């Protein structure tokens, strides 16, 4: 389409499709952004304005009181710290464990390793409800209910399937010759994994970091089951809790939602460059 100018006069007809597609996409984009825009707009308006039906209009002046209210609330600080204490270790450990297993399945296959791999990968499809009650009983017996440990542990365990799948697929694209060269140079398998295979797999690590961080940060079910006191709540439960406290303060609710979404948005923006590439190599090519 860019070389339209060089096409001989006879063939140069106006092609309406790019324009039509652009307009269609632009309309869809506006529709898609509307819900998010509503939250943005609510966060900079007073409750009074919203109650009088002005939520969906552009405000004439910005009101920062909602953000001040949220950011000065000590409960919000606690929710944030708790969520970070769960998300950071569970993300890192699940990716690390997935790398270990994925390396074996890609580079050190053994009799039955394919079957074992399939069993682990099928764990991706297990509904959380299928393991919920026995885990509740287990953590109850270990006296870990209403601490953050069960949430960290279960996110790590439930993350192993997807991490193993993507890391195996990615490691499979690392040439065997590289590993063998490292081994001949006197490296052991651990060094071949950490010094050769992992540095070549940064796109896959970026994809997993994005996926795991987002899932764990945004999770609602596990903290709902395993925590009881407000001191141990994570941010998503905190939002639901505070909805009661700020029941008609929609602006405060909106700014709280925005603030709670900042970490996942940052992680996505940060890893975005690798994300599509990693997806292509890890998931789609299989």
């Amino acid at each position: 389409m860019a070389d339209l100018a060089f096409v001989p006069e006879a063939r140069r007809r106006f092609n309406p499709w790019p324009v039509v597609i652009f307009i269609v996409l632009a309309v869809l984009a506006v529709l898609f952004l509307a819900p998010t825009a509503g939250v943005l707009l609510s966060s900079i308006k007073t409750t009074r304005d919203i109650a009088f039906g002005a939520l969906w209009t552009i405000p004439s002046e910005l009101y920062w009181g909602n953000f001040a209210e949220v950011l000065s609330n000590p409960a919000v600080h606690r929710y944030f710290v708790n969520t970070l204490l769960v998300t950071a270790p569970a993300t890192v450990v699940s990716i690390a464990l997935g790398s270990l297993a994925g390396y074996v399945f890609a580079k050190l296959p053994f009799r039955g390793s394919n079957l074992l791999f399939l069993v682990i990968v099928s764990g991706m499809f297990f509904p959380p409800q299928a393991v919920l009650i026995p885990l509740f009983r287990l953590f109850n017996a270990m006296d870990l209910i209403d601490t953050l440990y069960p949430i960290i542990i279960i996110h790590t365990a439930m993350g192993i399937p997807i991490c193993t799948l993507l890391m195996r697929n990615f490691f499979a694209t690392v040439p065997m010759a590289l590993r063998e060269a490292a081994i001949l140079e006197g490296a052991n398998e651990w060094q071949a994994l950490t010094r050769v295979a992992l540095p070549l797999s940064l796109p896959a690590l970026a994809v997993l970091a994005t996926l795991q961080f987002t899932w764990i940060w945004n999770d609602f079910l596990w903290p709902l089951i395993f925590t009881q006191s407000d001191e141990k709540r994570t941010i998503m439960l905190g939002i639901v809790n505070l909805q009661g406290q700020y029941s008609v303060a929609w602006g405060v609710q909106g700014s709280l939602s925005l603030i709670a979404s900042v970490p996942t948005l940052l992680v996505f923006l940060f890893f975005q460059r690798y994300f599509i590439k990693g997806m292509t190599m890890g998931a789609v090519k299989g």
Partner: protein
Amino acid sequence: MERENRFWQVILLALPLAIFITFVIWPLANSFYYSFTNWNGFNPDYDYVGFDNFLKIHTDQLFLNAAINTALWIVAAIVVPTACGLSLALLIDSRIPGGSVFKSIFYLPICLSAVVVGQIWVWIYQPDWGLLNTVVEAVSGEQFNYAWLAKPDSALWSVIVAWSWQQTGLSMVIFLAGLTTIPEDLVEVCEIEGARALQRIRLVVIPLLAPATVVVIALNVINSLKGFDILYTMTGGGPFNSSDTLAMHMYNESFKKYLMGYGSAISVVLFLIALIIIRLYFRQLRKVDALHG
């Protein structure tokens, strides 16, 4: 060499396997076990009740209702985000200006949590000042106060729309990734051969997207089985259980009524549904692998 390999296989697999077995496989097996008991969640003692919990499923009207809603939910969660994601990916892939901006806009909702998405859409459906009714009023010029989430007829579908809005971006990104693997000259050949755009998409592009489609559908099914958070925050399964799903029903029976034995039986049914999907998924995957190498 052989012995050394064995050593590393054991060392590297030990920890991931131990954790996976202890916290996923073992609890899963135990869910089957508890589904034959009447454990109440607190009392350490319980009795074996045989197949009572599964017989109760037969007579539990709420279970039937939740099962139908779950089926609707899964089908909608497969069809809508997959179709919308594919259409958006094809449109964006047609090399229009601003493609990456559009991509980010459509992907954005995936970064938001179900709780946040639920809150956003509760506002859209809000009867008095919600966006939907405001637009309807502006177009029709009449007062319109329909409470979308409070009416049994519309509650489930309203949540499905919100869910699809969030999930479409993920499908789109994977389809876009799949489109980059289609050789450009193949598409050009079709163009020279005179295939029209829609023919090209139907006969060449979509078949070549099969690997991406398998991933998209699998992810949509997985996510739909986990679709508990958004229902919990938007409707809580109501009104009158009209948006109850099996995941929701299981939560209510286990953690509201403390019928953990019966809850386990429901979770076993949920797992069996997942098992059917796992089988279908691996069969499709093998077919696609055979075709695409």
